């Protein structure tokens, strides 16, 4: 409406009056300065807060003032547009602050124990007053547990995806697809409890003279339960991207379907599948709760994933965080940095691989 109101009838349109007036940058800055001065006066004079409140209140005043001033100059709709834009930009800044703080803390506190001793020793015989001690056993545990989980989840997940794409028709396939999606959202602690009640309390006593036993393998099972739906979903999406004519060409040469899938479809989709698997592995490596419930954690090195407690890197972080020793926080942060580095390397590699993938959209 404002655009129409500003053109008085009978005036010939010229480039000067065809556009609505823009808010001058100077006015914008003036509003900002005024807002922060008012905020400082309101906050600091009665002494109800510190500079944080000044910034927050100043920002609120600026947004209000901007919408009022812009509304007078540019019209209601343009002012609204401007206010929403400012809100969206402030949302970005607001979110970046804590996330940047996480990254900064991780790096600055994590380098404290980033030495050979940390990566070469376990926590065996490390008392509360010893500054040494490391995460060697935890790294071993993470690698073994995630490795075994990958070995179990990848064939199952890829075959499941092949079923959904190549064979699955009708209601049953729809149900499977729906529950794969639902399973993606199962909390990791529930997967841990499932393996606890199934493997640790019921199956493991058979192998251990009737005594339930924690093991790294149980953690692998729980991680595999968590990885499976992710792998099925990503593989399914990749298999769907394989062009139909490739399959048809193979069929036309008389190759049966199973061989077409194994020698034509899978190799074509392989880079995408590997990307999905790496993302799933990165997720699994960071899981703490299931390992806590079924592997138990340990202070000593245990290479055998099938017998006895095992540590993992994320569980090491959690346990050191709860440790009263004054050297424990350093160990926790360095282990957290190691864990994040591991996860990020996997994730970045997966994303770069996905970018080079010819199949991706």
């Amino acid at each position, binding site marked *: 409406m404002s655009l129409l109101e500003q053109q008085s009838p009978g005036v010939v349109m010229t480039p000067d009056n065809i556009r609505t007036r823009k808010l001058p940058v100077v006015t914008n800055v003036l509003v900002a300065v005024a807002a922060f001065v008012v905020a400082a006066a309101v906050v600091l004079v009665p002494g109800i*807060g510190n500079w944080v409140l000044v910034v927050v209140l100043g920002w609120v005043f600026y947004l209000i003032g901007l919408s009022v001033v812009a509304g007078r100059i540019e019209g209601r709709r343009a002012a609204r547009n401007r206010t929403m834009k400012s809100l969206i930009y402030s949302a970005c800044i607001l979110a970046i602050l804590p996330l940047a703080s996480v990254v900064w803390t991780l790096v600055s506190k994590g380098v404290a124990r980033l030495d050979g001793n940390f990566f070469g020793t376990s926590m065996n015989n490390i008392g509360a007053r010893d500054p040494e001690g490391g995460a060697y056993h935890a790294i071993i545990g993470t690698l073994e547990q995630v490795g075994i989980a990958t070995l179990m989840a990848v064939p199952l997940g890829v*075959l499941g995806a092949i079923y959904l794409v190549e064979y699955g028709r009708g209601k049953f396939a729809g149900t499977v697809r729906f529950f794969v999606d639902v399973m993606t*959202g199962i909390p990791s602690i529930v*997967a841990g409890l499932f393996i606890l009640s199934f493997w640790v309390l019921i199956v493991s006593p058979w192998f251990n003279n009737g005594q339930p036993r924690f093991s790294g393998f149980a953690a692998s099972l729980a991680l595999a339960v968590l990885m499976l739906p992710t792998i099925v979903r990503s593989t399914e999406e990749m298999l769907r991207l394989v062009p139909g004519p490739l399959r048809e060409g193979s069929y036309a040469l008389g190759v049966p379907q199973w061989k077409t899938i194994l020698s034509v479809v899978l190799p074509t989709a392989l880079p995408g599948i590997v990307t999905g698997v790496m993302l799933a592995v990165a997720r699994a490596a960071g899981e703490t709760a299931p390992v*806590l419930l079924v592997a138990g954690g340990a202070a000593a090195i245990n290479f055998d994933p099938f017998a006895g407690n095992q540590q993992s890197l994320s569980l090491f972080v959690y346990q050191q965080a709860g440790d009263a020793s004054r050297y424990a926080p350093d160990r926790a942060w360095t282990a957290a940095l190691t864990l994040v580095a591991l996860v990020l390397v996997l994730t970045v590699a997966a994303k770069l691989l996905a970018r080079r993938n010819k199949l991706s959209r």
Partner: protein
Amino acid sequence: MGDYPSRSVNATAGDLGVTPRHAQGAGYGSSPSNHDEPPLGGGGALPKKARFSIEAGFRGLSTASGAMVLVIIVAIAVFLISKAVPALQANTGDFFTQFEWAPNEANPSFGIAALAFGTVLSSVIALIVAVPIALGIALFLSHYAPKRLATPLGFVIDLLAAVPSVVFGLWGRDVFQEPVRDFSIWLNKYFSWIPLFGGDGPFGQSIMLGGLVLAIMVLPIVTSLSREVFQQTPGMNEEAALALGATRWEMIRTAVLPYGKPGVIAAVMLGLGRALGETIALALTLSVAFDISFNLIENGGNSVAANIANSFAEANDTGRGALIASGLVLFAITLVVNMTARAIIYRRREFRDSAA
């Protein structure tokens, strides 16, 4: 399983009598999509479909793998129930109304109410804080930022979604607790007349800290999901709105948001599912309490998952069963939330496919 190295060569040569092994071949000569019908044409030269073939074996194997997902979901429910029932029978209190967690005593008594309340309250706080900000970032990435900035920023958001929760928990306890405590004291000083911010302290390790840490964790997930939805808005809708003279915000309100609404709802529900099941971040940031209190800033608060992590070490048989029972409740809640979210997405997908 046998291997047939030169199948295609044999197929074109057609010398089937020479290698009788091929007569048993897998789905040989039949069109791959309909296995039950006899092969068309070819007279008697083409072999009959074998009863036990590699084709059928492979098909069965992959079907079994697909069905494994259903088996696992059912098995989760079955095993959790089987371990929870004995503990529930030993419970002397009411599982749904008791405000304590003492399953390791001689007369075990435990109730889920306070835990479930804490879980829901912290998740709701997380969503109230995270969703508007996440939608703002998603809109920024999809419609405001220049492409040179949007691509790396989106990449960073995706990376942050991969950071393990234990790291966020550690950060929340060691770093974020200080500012939250200061803020809580300030809130308490000036707003203690609002019951949410009342109490006499100590402050800091409160449900607000837990909720805010959860919000920071949920933020990347909701952002990246809703960004994808916003980017899928048909360009024609946007251009039509702009051509009618809409400002950029009006274009977003009339074209992007209505189109993305189901996707955003689903993203929020998935974020909710993640927040409900979050364990370690809350175990590190909350200080344990067993009551239902709307006070956000006083030390206290608990959640189902955090309680499992915290009390698992000293749990006896009944205690373990009690924790499994609480896990079962969590499983049921997240199952409902996730199924609702997925149902919304699926309805949406059909809608889009039919419209296309």
